[in-house]
């Protein structure tokens, strides 16, 4: 049976227990699925599951984000579709004790791969997309203007290309069979390369990237770990840490402290990078942090619920510092 059919059946089964289930449905075109809140049985048929279902629903969980937003009440129970990478976000939030395990049901989706639209856009003009079909390790893409066959490896998200945890690490129900993980080797390639360049080049590179930031804070709002809400110092006037101007330096500073606030917590889900409307490679910054955390503390965020995030603890004798 198709994974989607199993999912639909499972949603039908758990729907009486929960207030709603968050899954994916069709968006304005085939490349842009949209989060879908299923609260009635008739809505289940609209659920979809394909290479483009990418949103990290863990983001809807932290109470500071949802309760004041009236999204759902504190005591409500929800179900959500969770990919391998998203499950790490959930574990991270559980570790921080910001969410509680008995308030949601996880429908774990083993995930083969997701297509990075930013990479796909470089290959073909996806504004006029008509169809996208995967066969083997290639994809046939048809737009209004042209038709192309593209190697899947060239258009997968980096996190998928080196996906170590394609199967959810935490779930109530696993939908379909598990898939094989890929090798992590090479995941930090772009970070390694960037470290090697000179300081001047680094500066001018970030200068160029942050020049086009519009300070929409989508990176922050899309991040499951960013739940400071009103208290985010990016906008507070008291304390007044950062100017509201859109000078490149202020935008870079914002991203620096946002990133560092996620040090040891970031699970490399890549949502910040994906949602950026102007394509700033934020995940490169986040990856640098996860790389350092891995090197210094031999720790991966969101893998084991029992561990304490590395910057919230210490060792008297550090293994890799000193």
């Amino acid at each position, binding site marked *: 049976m198709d994974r989607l059919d199993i999912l639909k059946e499972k949603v039908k089964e758990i729907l009486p227990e929960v207030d709603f289930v968050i899954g994916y449905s069709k968006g*304005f075109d085939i490349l842009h699925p949209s989060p879908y809140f299923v609260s009635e049985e008739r809505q289940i048929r609209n659920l979809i599951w394909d290479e483009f279902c990418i949103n990290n629903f863990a983001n809807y969980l932290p109470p500071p984000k949802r309760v*004041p937003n009236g999204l759902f009440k504190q005591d409500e129970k929800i179900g959500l579709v969770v990919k391998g990478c998203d499950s790490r976000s959930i574990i991270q939030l559980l570790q921080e004790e910001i969410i509680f395990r008995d308030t949601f049901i996880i429908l774990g989706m083993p995930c083969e791969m997701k297509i990075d639209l930013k990479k796909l856009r470089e290959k073909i003009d996806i504004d006029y997309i008509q169809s996208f079909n995967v066969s083997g390790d290639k994809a046939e893409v048809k737009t209004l203007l042209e038709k192309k066959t593209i190697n899947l490896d060239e258009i997968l998200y980096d996190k998928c290309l080196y996906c170590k945890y394609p199967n959810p690490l935490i779930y109530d129900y696993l939908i379909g069979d598990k898939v094989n993980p890929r090798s992590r080797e090479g995941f930090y390639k772009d970070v390694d390369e960037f470290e090697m360049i000179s300081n001047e080049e680094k500066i001018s590179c970030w200068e*160029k990237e942050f020049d086009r930031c519009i300070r929409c804070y989508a990176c922050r709002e899309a991040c499951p770990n960013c739940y400071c809400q009103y208290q985010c110092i990016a906008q507070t006037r008291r304390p007044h840490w950062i100017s509201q101007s859109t000078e490149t330096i202020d935008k870079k500073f914002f991203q620096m402290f946002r990133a560092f606030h996620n040090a040891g917590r970031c699970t490399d889900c890549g949502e910040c990078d994906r949602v950026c409307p102007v394509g700033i490679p934020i995940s490169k910054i986040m990856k640098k942090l996860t790389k350092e955390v891995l090197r210094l503390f031999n720790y991966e965020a969101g893998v084991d619920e029992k561990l304490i995030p590395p910057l919230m603890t210490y060792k008297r004798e550090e293994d890799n510092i000193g």
Partner: protein
Amino acid sequence: MIKKIPLNKVKNLLDDLSGDYKVFAPVKNGRSIIFDEYRSDKEVNLEKFSVTSIKEALFPSHEAMIKYDYKKDPSDLSKTSLSLKSEVNFDKTVIFGVHPCDARGFFTFDKVYAGNGYRDVYYKTKRDATAIVAITCANPLATCFCTTVGGSPADSEGTDVLLTKVDEFYYAESYSEKGELLLKNSNFSSPQGGVDNEQVLKIKEEAVQKLDKNFSTEGIENKLLKIFSDSDYWKNATSKCLSCGICTYVCPTCYCFNITDEGVMGRGERIRSWDSCMFPLFTLEASGHNPRARKFERYRNRINHKFSYLVIRNNIIGCVGCGRCIRHCPVSLDIREVVKGVID
């Protein structure tokens, strides 16, 4: 006046213009196309849809309104003098290569910032010194809905020059004195008679036909007011929203701003920077009370502002149907669906 210009001369034209004017054009910046000031080392892309709208040119993401400086008298430290500087000077500007919907976006700004009531000097001076060169939008996207809200992909309203691409040429029609002045540039040549004219008309008509009307805007302002208190509708429609500011910041008509004093040690600027009604902080009051604390209330306000309040107060729909808020929304929240839901 009707002129034409070969595609390969557009670069020359922009270089020429940037001598006399400040030129804004859709330029490639990294992987994205954004509206930015043109320099000859930047790559202009007139084919694709830019991420940001042109409002940046007349309503910058931040601008200094006042510069202030407190100075202590070195001989008498109890005395402090304050110097204030406010500068409004603006160079002649050409906004080049916009879509007709973007050009219409300034109508909303005009009503609010340069209408009969308040006149915003920062906006108005720039607006008066600006000429807009638009391009007929021959291949609208799936997210476009300009015809629904009263525009058209070949709309000449609000533009000074409208370019239409025919084979290897852009045909340029001027609609104002500012436009005619631009067409006097030597890179333009005169077209040969009626054949081209017909072709231009045909392309424009075809473009219009490519777009369907999504909904009828008739009486929408009252329908929205009627459904205002139906919070279940709004909750369901917006539950996936992330409360980020993308939709408002890429929008060509969203004009809200925040004013803050940014400075250190008695010296600095009072700046005005974009603000977004999608942020909870937008309406947070000093008391701690927030009249629009929940995101469905904020989103409802955005829709109501565009399709109801502006219509009632200023007789203009505050949406030009460019579809940016749909295209760039991280959760693909479709404003058309939400409005359609209200009408049904």
